[in-house]
């Protein structure tokens, strides 16, 4: 299967009945592995400053389910959440992976990186030789990894962990590493976006990225563009309160300036998404989330700290297309 076909498959599955990265992807991954005799992606997953919501989101992946991701796609060697090893045994696995898979492993970072006071606000482990800060760990691992994937908005852009007044000086992974970081933003990430990115890395290498370094497959278009309630917006038929079936723009919806495929893809086995339950999108994939989306229930023009419309794709719609 060619790269373009894979992209098309992902898009098709976003709109099909049992959509998402459905069972279709798995046989292809398996066949690819057999055909190319490729190893699974060795992965070190570093948890830093976030709520752990992205590893919970990852647990919610369906087709492939978590066990299928473990058996067919990745070797999750280090993960504070999942690994059986603990204490020093865990740290030795991390060291071992850096040596054995130098330049070949994928580093997944979940969380922002505190930079103030030498990064002391996040210690991933303490050793006889002193604490290992997230800042130190991400720099060391980032230098040795083949790919660095930032999962969630905290890791991608700082997110809630770097919200004002940001007393820990937290920043996204891309801001502390001098190398390319693939951002898979969202608060939390939709498991399809993350597992789909891993699948792309495994089968075709790096996916095409937008100007915020996010896979275009999932972030190319705005929520607003694909929203089921777009017709209400166009008729200026706006909801009067939460719980109404009309457009949520009046209730603070950030959809017009937020890139993701939530309206098609939806969440947790693709059953729903925020606008479908009569509430606004709060722009959780955005670079300026949460500050730029606040106050959450105030209409977009009155949100005080929004950084324009997010990214250039939205500022300058392609010719002949609306946003």
């Amino acid at each position, binding site marked *: 299967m060619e790269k373009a076909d894979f992209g098309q498959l992902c898009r098709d599955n976003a709109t099909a009945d049992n959509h998402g990265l459905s069972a279709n992807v798995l046989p292809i991954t398996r066949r690819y592995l057999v055909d190319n005799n490729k190893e699974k992606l060795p992965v070190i997953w570093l948890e830093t400053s976030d709520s*752990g919501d992205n590893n*919970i989101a990852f647990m919610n992946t369906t087709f492939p389910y978590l066990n299928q991701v473990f058996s067919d796609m990745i070797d999750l060697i280090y993960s504070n959440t999942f690994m*059986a090893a603990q204490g020093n045994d865990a740290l030795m696995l991390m060291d071992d992976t850096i040596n054995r898979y130098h330049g070949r492993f994928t580093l997944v970072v979940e969380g922002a990186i505190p930079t103030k006071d030498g990064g002391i606000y996040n210690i991933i482990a303490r050793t006889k030789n002193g604490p290992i800060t997230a800042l130190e760990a991400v720099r060391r691992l980032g230098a040795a990894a083949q790919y660095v994937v930032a999962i969630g908005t905290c890791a991608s852009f700082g997110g809630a962990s770097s919200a004002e007044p940001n007393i820990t000086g937290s920043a996204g992974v891309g801001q502390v590493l001098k190398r390319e970081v693939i951002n898979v933003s969202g608060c939390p990430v939709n498991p399809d976006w993350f597992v789909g990115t891993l699948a792309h890395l495994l089968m075709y290498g790096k996916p095409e990225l937008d100007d915020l370094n996010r896979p275009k497959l999932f972030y190319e278009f705005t929520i607003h563009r694909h929203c089921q309630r777009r017709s209400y917006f166009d008729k200026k038929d706006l909801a009067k309160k939460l719980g109404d079936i009309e457009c949520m723009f009046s209730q603070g919806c950030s959809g017009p300036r937020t890139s993701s495929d939530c309206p098609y893809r939806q969440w947790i086995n693709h059953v*729903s998404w925020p606008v479908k339950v009569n509430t606004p999108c709060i722009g959780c994939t955005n670079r300026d989330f949460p500050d730029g989306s606040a106050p959450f*229930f105030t209409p977009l023009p009155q949100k005080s700290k929004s950084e324009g419309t997010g990214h250039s794709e939205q500022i300058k719609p392609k010719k002949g297309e609306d946003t």
Partner: protein
Amino acid sequence: MSPQKILFSPVTRLSGLLSVELEIEHRLVTEANVSCTMFRGFEYIMRNHHVTDAVYLTQRICGICSSVHGAVASYLLDQLYDNDIEENAQYLRNIMMGADFLQNHIRHFYFFGLPDFVVMPNQPPFLSQNCYDCRFDEKDNRRLASHYLEAIKAGEKSHQILALFGGKAPHQHSFVHGGVAVAPTADKINQALALVRDIQDFVKRYLMPDTELIAKCYSDYFHIGETPGRFLSFGLFRFGSKNNQMLWQSGVLENGRLSDAHLGLIQEDISRAWFKRAAWLKSDEISPAPHKLEAYTWTKSVQYRGKHYEGGPLARMLINGFYEGGTSTMDRIVARSLETLLISELMEEWLHELQPGEPPIHQKKDLVHNQATAVTDAMRGPLLHSALVQDEKVEKYDIITPTVWNFSPKDEQNHRGPAESALVGTDIPSPELRNVILGRIIRSFDPCISCATH
């Protein structure tokens, strides 16, 4: 022989980042400092936000228990705006919270707890498992290990119920102040019923028998990791138009004596936490002090009437008379599984009570108070949000989470919190068993460090 100083770091298979400093003398743990090593500063982040941002923003404190932060923030806003909550909204709210409890407990037991007792396949993510004290015969072991896979689906189905009504998970959207924004339609109710029955089936076929098997095989853990037996619950599952009725009662249990919980008796202490009081600011204003020498954690010490109290499923089951037992590691594990069964049954009941209809939400527009405190129990124990508001903006927001109670550092007088108490006195027969035994004790509290430090 002077005590041996040991670092247990990182303590994996829990939410967030935890290290434990220990002193061990003649095989006995003589001191333990539980050290939560991440800090974000949510109480500062909340300031100046419109107060209605609290429901969505405070959910970002925690990934595994997000919905309860949204719930308690909604209760708080219901007070501030004096909302009246429809009965249908309460059923929906409790169904969503219940779903998140099921998700949490199932994942805790299998993803976090199981590798403490069962030999997992020697492949990622289970490499370098310490199997010195894995006791099951091959047949039982294989069966238990295979249930990890079943738990993957049961956990996902639990969150599917939350997303079905709440839009997504973690960080649901529809459970807000004034009620619930989603319409409980017949198809959704039916879909959720089917999911609940699947989860119930999982709990009855796997979780309960597996709990029994582990409790039997590791029965010595009914005497390991015991705490002083002081329990606190803020109650769980609110009903009534003013959120004033509680299905599972709140209370304080000490030496078998139950009394009412009074929020005024709660106090926080920062003696051993990386915070300092700023003399030049308001007297109760504290700020981070990451270099404070006598401190060892980002978690404050919290006490009720001057003493540390333990929260969680064991506290709730004891206080409500659903369980009789001790205060040990295995009691905490068994009580959590029992609670999972009870909630899965309640969920079915509530789904039958829920009436199809319009979204049950009525948000009042004007604040009638500028200060409120709201509580509920969360998965791991008592959860409190408190806000002071000026012109609809947050002036001060206080959060005390369950893991603050359970993983409290020492207070000024060096009294230990529940987790430290449980660790001290533990017999470590040989060095290779150390992390195994301590890991089991620590995980039985189901710690969430993201919450504890927030």
